[in-house]
Each structure stands twice: as structure tokens, then as C-alpha cells.
């Protein structure tokens, strides 16, 4: 690989022994810092340290815990729904509660768990550390962002306690039904949902501003864009997407709030409800669908791109190998991000749009599979001949690749209009999107938590518990979602609250429903193991050595671990290389941290990829 590659350092010395004895200070020379060091906010009281903290690391943990707490509610809701589906005879849920749980489960998982966790949680924790900054660009705004998120969550949860309960319109909130009598929570719950989303968007915009500016302007010396870890590329691109996509959600929410509260007719057509003619006239429900999916499709990638980035780093570190095709990975992230704005109407094939429109969106949808496939190939090629360590992050990353591939392949089916029309609104769709943007990113979340836990707490999580957790979660997810593909093929519709023995339903469906529900209960319960591991390890876990995974990226090179306020002690780090120099021939260790100056690794020959 490297034979045609010329290395200037070789000319200076072919010496591969103890590097510290060779003193060549000139090759370490970097120009003096031209930019002033960042001024830091120092907290003065208990409140500003632990509650209204302005330290990005702390805000990241706050974001993550709030998101995971909300996500647990989403998990419990899925249990309740599955019990109803498996044993409809029990009369476990009212139809209205079933729809409310479907809606809340969807919205919580997509927006309040995954978006908040990846961007708010991992973004805040990792961006300053991996870029070599002391903190975010605007720490105060960052703090406001978190508290806006908290208020959004509180408003969302408050909708469980208003008369009529939360909205049952499905997470897509399509008008007119979302705000028309007959839909659960049509006059109370939906308003709180819309207000909560507006607050979330406002909070996210403040956070997103921080992520973008910090990545662009506050990196360490020597950290060029193309030396950034792919994690940062993923989070950064996802943030840019979110800044452009969330306004569409905001517009939709604002206009629907007005339709509901004031009685305007942005989205509401003239209609008769319960025998009465409503005052609305001429509104366009399809307009809302376009607005919603103009947000909704990029949202898929807002969740997926950080997962792509994180998994690339996990694979590289835990297989002790350079990421394969770094530049291609960056281009794929950026390319997927750009393309994601041109595919939204593939969610609307059955909305009665012009067939040419469907043709256009089917084409763009299939084009976006190209950069995505490149990423999958590159992950596999990264593993090729690597020194694969089956640590927990590696297990979860491998699980991610398989699951994402699986979900991606069913996406190819659904991206074609003619295939989608019969499969639309069946369990095939449910299985597809849970695989691709539910299980796959969640596996990355787990891998990332096991990987960066020592950075946050200074202790390791329990390996055995983690492995049990992995195998139950991984195999259990397949037990849940593989049968759903089949159910979709035999035509079981989604969103039906009871599917009971009748001439239209195959007996296999009934049996599978019971099987899936048992799997759901087991997988859900296995998450308790994870939670126990997460909280107990903070006290009982094995003390982590510094840089326990022998990674190169900057977050592991802080003077203290866990890093202190300001991250870097007195001197900001200087970066001499990208974070993927693993198993470099001629180097003493199998990794070369980004901060290691060239004079210490004379003779090491960096491989070309």
C-alpha cells in the first residue's frame, strides 16, 4: 500500500528505535497562536455549577440524561401498545389511548430522544473536546438551549394530564384530523404538542448555533477540517441540516396552532364534522404534509449522520486500523446531507401527487443510496485485516452495520413508487423505519456510551453486563422486526389498534403478534441492565486508566480524565495529524495521538488510504 508513497521524514533518518533520544525540534515547530484564548465563564454558586451550568460537558450530560429519561417513557409506551396488539381480547387499551401512545412513542423517540441525545448530548460532550476548544462558542446560549429543551419536554409530558389527553394524530400530526373532533386530544393535547415542538426548535437553534460556530471557528491549532474525527463531521453536518430543516417544522406547527386556536384556514379545508359544517375553508392539508416531510426526511439524517460519524470512529479505534477512505466518508456525509433535502415526498407517494413528481422523488431516493452504500463498504473495509477487538463498542458497531444494511435494503423497496403503493401503511414500513432509524442509531448510542463512559466518569462500565445487554438487544430486535416485514407482505395494516381472529387476518399474524410482544417485553427489560450498569458503574466500575481504548482523538488527551472545567489546563493542544494513525509501521505503539509531535515518531511511516 505504502510502497509508492514517499515520506520526507525517512530521508532524515531511517532510525526506528527510541525516538526520544533524537532531537529534531525544527520539525515540531508550529507558528505562535494568532488567536486569543477563549475567555471562560466560571461558576460561582451551586446553581450555576450543577443546574444552570455553562460547561458544555456538563450540559451534554444533562441533555443525555433528560433525553434518555424521556426515551424510557417512549419504551414503556411501546410495551403497552404491544400488549394490546398481542392480546386484543384483554381490552387492555382503549382505541384512543392506543393512538395517543403511538403518537407519543413516535415523537418522543425521534425528536426528544434521538435528536436531543445525538446533537445535544454527544454534540455538547464531544465537540469542544474533540476539536480542542475550551468550551462552546456561546456557553450562555448553550445553557439556554438545554433549558428550552427541558421546558419542551415538560410541556410535552403535561399533555398526558390535560382533559382529552395527549394527541393521537400519529407522529406526523396530519391535519385536518389532528385538530378535528374524533381524534384523541384534538383540542388540548395537540396544542401542547405543537407548543412543545416550537420550544424544541427554538432551543435547538440556540444549541445548533453553538455546534456550528465551535466546529468552524474554535478548533485547536493544526486541526484543519480534514483532520477532524468523523464523529465531528457527522454531528456538524447533522446540525447544519437541522438548522435548515427545523424551520419547516416550525412553520407547520405555527400555522396549525393558529388553525386550531384562532380558526384560520391555512391547512383546514371546508369540511363537515359530526354533522356540522366547520368554519374552515380552502386550506391545504397537502401543504402541511410537504412542510412536515421537508423537515421529516432530513430529520432521519439528523439522527443518522451523527451515528455514521460515531460508528466510523468506534470501528477505527476498536479494530486498530485507519478508517478506510476518510475523504470519501466525509464526502458521503456531506453528500447525504445535501441530498436529504430532495427526497422528502417519498413519504407521500399515496397522497395523490402527480406521477412525475413521484418519479423524481423515487430517483433522488435511489441516488441517496449511493453515498450510503459507500459508507457501508468503507466500514467493512476498515474491518478488513484489522486487529478486531470485540469490546462492547465494537460489538454494538458491528450490530449497527448489519442492522443499518438491513433497514437500508428495505428502503430500496419502499423508495420505488410501484412497490411502495401496496406496502404503504403496512407493518413493512414499520419494520423498515424501526430498523434504519430506530435500532441502528440506538445501537450506536449504546456503543458510544460504552466507549465514552470512562471519559465522563473516569470508570469503565461492566463488560459482562454489557455483553448480556448487547446480545439480548441485538437478537431481540431482530426477533421483533423480522416478523414485521413478513406481516407487512401479507398486508397487515399499521395503526390498527386491534388485529383479532377474522377471515381477513392470517393465523400466523396472530401468533407472530404474540411472539413479537414477548420479544419486546424481554428487550425492554434488558435495558434495565443497561441502566443499572450506567448508574452503578459511576461508583462501582473499575477505575479507567487514561485513554483506556488507546484512541488518537483529542478528547482522550486532556491533562485530567475526566477533563476539568476548561478541558486543557494551561496550554491548548496542538494537533499534528489526523486521528486515524493506528498500527503505523515503525511506530512504537499501535496508535499515534493527534497531539504527538513528529520528532517523537521518527521512522514511523504513515499509510496512505
Amino acid at each position, binding site marked *: 500500500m505504502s510502497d509508492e508513497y514517499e515520506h520526507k521524514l525517512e530521508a532524515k533518518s531511517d532510525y526506528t528505535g527510541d525516538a526520544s533520544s533524537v532531537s529534531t525540534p525544527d520539525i515540531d515547530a508550529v507558528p505562535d497562536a494568532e488567536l486569543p484564548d477563549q475567555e471562560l465563564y466560571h461558576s460561582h454558586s451551586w446553581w450555576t455549577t450543577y443546574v444552570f451550568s455553562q460547561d458544555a460537558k456538563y450540559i451534554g450530560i444533562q441533555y443525555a440524561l433528560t433525553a434518555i429519561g424521556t426515551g424510557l417513557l417512549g419504551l414503556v409506551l411501546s410495551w403497552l401498545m404491544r400488549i394490546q396488539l398481542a392480546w386484543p381480547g384483554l381490552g387492555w387499551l382503549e382505541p384512543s389511548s392506543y393512538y395517543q401512545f403511538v403518537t407519543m412513542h413516535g415523537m418522543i423517540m425521534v425528536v426528544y430522544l434521538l435528536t436531543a441525545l445525538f446533537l445535544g448530548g454527544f454534540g455538547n460532550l464531544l465537540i469542544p473536546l474533540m476539536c480542542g476548544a475550551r468550551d462552546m462558542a456561546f456557553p450562555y446560549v448553550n445553557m439556554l438551549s438545554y433549558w428550552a429543551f427541558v421546558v419542551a419536554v415538560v410541556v410535552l409530558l403535561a399533555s398526558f394530564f390535560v382533559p382529552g389527553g395527549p394527541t393521537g394524530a400519529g407522529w406526523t400530526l396530519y391535519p385536518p384530523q389532528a385538530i378535528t373532533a374524533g381524534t384523541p386530544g384534538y383540542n388540548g393535547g395537540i396544542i401542547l404538542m405543537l407548543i412543545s415542538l416550537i420550544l424544541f426548535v427554538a432551543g435547538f437553534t440556540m444549541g445548533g448555533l453553538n455546534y456550528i460556530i465551535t466546529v468552524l471557528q474554535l478548533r485547536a491549532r*493544526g486541526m484543519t*477540517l480534514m483532520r477532524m474525527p468523523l464523529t465531528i463531521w457527522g454531528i456538524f453536518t447533522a446540525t447544519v441540516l437541522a438548522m*435548515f430543516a427545523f424551520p419547516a417544522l416550525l412553520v407547520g406547527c405555527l400555522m396549525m396552532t393558529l388553525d386550531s386556536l384562532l380558526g384560520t384556514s391555512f391547512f383546514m379545508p371546508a369540511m363537515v364534522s359530526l354533522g356540522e359544517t366547520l368554519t374552515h375553508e*380552502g386550506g391545504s392539508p397537502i401543504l402541511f404534509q410537504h412542510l412536515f416531510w421537508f423537515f421529516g426526511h432530513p430529520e432521519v439524517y439528523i439522527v443518522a449522520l451523527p451515528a455514521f460519524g460515531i460508528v466510523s470512529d468506534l470501528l477505527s479505534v476498536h479494530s486498530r486500523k485507519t478508517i478506510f477512505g476518510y475523504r470519501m466518508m466525509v464526502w458521503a456525509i456531506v453528500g447525504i446531507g445535501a441530498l436529504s433535502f430532495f427526497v422528502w415526498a417519498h413519504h407521500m407517494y399515496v397522497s395523490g401527487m402527480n406521477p412525475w413528481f413521484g418519479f423524481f422523488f423515487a430517483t433522488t431516493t435511489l441516488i441517496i443510496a449511493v453515498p450510503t452504500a459507500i459508507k457501508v463498504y468503507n466500514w467493512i473495509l476498515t474491518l478488513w485485516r484489522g486487529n478486531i477487538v470485540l469490546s462492547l463498542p465494537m460489538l454494538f458497531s458491528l450490530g449497527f452495520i448489519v442492522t443499518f444494511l438491513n433497514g437500508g435494503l428495505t428502503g430500496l423497496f419502499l423508495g420505488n413508487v410501484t412497490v411502495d403503493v401496496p406496502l404503504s401503511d403496512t407493518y413493512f414500513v414499520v419494520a423498515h423505519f424501526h430498523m434504519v432509524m430506530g435500532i441502528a442509531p440506538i445501537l450506536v448510542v449504546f456503543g458510544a456510551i460504552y466507549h465514552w463512559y470512562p471519559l465522563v466518569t473516569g470508570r469503565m462500565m461492566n463488560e459482562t453486563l454489557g455483553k448480556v445487554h448487547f446480545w439480548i438487544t441485538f437478537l431481540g430486535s431482530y426477533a421483533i422486526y423480522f416478523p414485521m416485514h413478513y406481516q407487512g407482505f401479507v398486508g397487515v395494516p399499521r395503526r390498527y389498534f386491534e388485529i383479532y381472529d377474522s377471515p381477513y387476518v392470517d393465523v400466523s399474524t396472530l401468533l407472530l403478534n404474540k411472539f413479537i410482544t414477548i420479544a419486546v417485553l424481554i428487550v425492554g427489560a434488558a435495558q434495565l441492565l443497561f441502566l443499572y450498569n450506567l448508574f452503578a458503574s459511576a461508583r462501582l466500575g473499575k477505575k479507567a486508566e487514561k485513554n483506556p481504548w488507546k484512541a488518537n482523538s483529542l478528547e482522550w488527551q486532556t491533562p485530567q480524565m475526566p477533563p476539568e472545567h476548561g478541558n486543557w489546563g494551561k496550554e491548548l493542544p496542538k494537533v499534528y495529524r489526523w486521528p486515524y494513525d493506528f498500527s503505523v509501521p515503525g511506530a512504537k505503539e499501535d496508535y499515534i495521538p493527534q497531539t504527538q509531535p513528529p520528532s517523537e515518531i521518527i521512522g514511523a511511516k504513515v499509510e496512505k*488510504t
Partner: protein
Amino acid sequence: MSKKKSIFQLLTEKPWEQDQIEADNEHQGQTVNLTKQKLGLRTLMAASTVLFSLFVVAYSDRMLVHDWRNMPEPWLLWFNTGILVISSLVFHQTTKYAKKQLFDKTKNGLYFIGFLAYSFLIGQLIVWYQLMNTGYYATSNVANAFFYLFTTIHGLHIIGGIYFWGKTTSKFIKRTLKEEEINNLIDICAVYWHFLLAVWLVLFGLMLSS
């Protein structure tokens, strides 16, 4: 600072090659040569532009339905537009004064801008009052609803601007910041003012032309 590179040049760098390594080691950690406030404002303006563009798209789409009844444009709206134009011009002049370190002129300029911004908001409220008195409620036609929505969102942006104008003005008068820092703040306020003028011209033009 390193010389300017296009996004394509940045994305095609090969960070593992020796020449690139040497060039990269000189990198100062900043992508564009702008203060973080300036770049932050640009990011927000980009997001805000998307927001207003989507409103425009929704407006244009909804306009085609038969129940659309155009709304009259009160003359006061022209007056308010004039206020916004003048405040933008004054702000432009004020940034020049600030650069020449003319303290009093800058201070008066900033005060006058604040006065104009408040006048604009009050003017918009009077337009609302007039329209509602003549029966143009948000519920009576969707064209009216769009008008109230546009003016509200634009007004909220102005209120946000006033908040930062207030902070900047008080910092300027207290002279707590360094020369370039305060000029940076005044500059970004001015840019935001021009941006809101442009947004208003687009929205107003859209309502006039339909």
C-alpha cells in the same frame, strides 16, 4: 491567517500527505476569518431565511385557492416601510461614525435607531388595530391570517434585534469593551437591521403583488 480556500479545496485536501501535513501544522484553528459573533449571526440569518422562504412558499401555494380575498394595504404600511429604510440608513452611517471613534455621533445614532425600531413596532400595531376595526380579522380570510402571521414573526425578529441593540448600546455607553469589540457588535447589529429590512421588503412586496 492562511489564504482563503473554497469549500471544494478544503474537502479535497489529503491530510496524510507530507506537504499537506506541513501546511496543516500551521493552521490556526479558524475556518473563516470572521469573529464568532459575525459568523453566528450569519448562521442565524441563514436559518431565518429558510423560515421566511417557507412562509413565502406556503403563501404562494395557498394563494391559488379560490377562497383567497386580497387584503387592502393601508398607507401606514408604506410609512412603516419608510421608517425601516431610514433606520437601516442611519445604522449604516452609525457604523461609520463608530469606526471613526466619534463617540457622541455614534451614541445619538444608536438612540435614534432604537427610537425608529420602537416606532416601527408601534406603527405595525396601529395597522393591526385599523384592520381589525374595519373587519379584516385573521379568521375572515386566510390572506389576512398570513398578514398577521408575517407581521408577528417579523416583529418578533425586530424585538430580538432591539434586545441586542439595547445590550450593545449600554456596553457602548459604559465603554467597557475594547474598540474593535464594540465595533464588531455595532456591525453585526447593523447587518441584522439590513437583513430585517430585506425580509420586510420581500414580505411587503409579496403582499402588494398579490
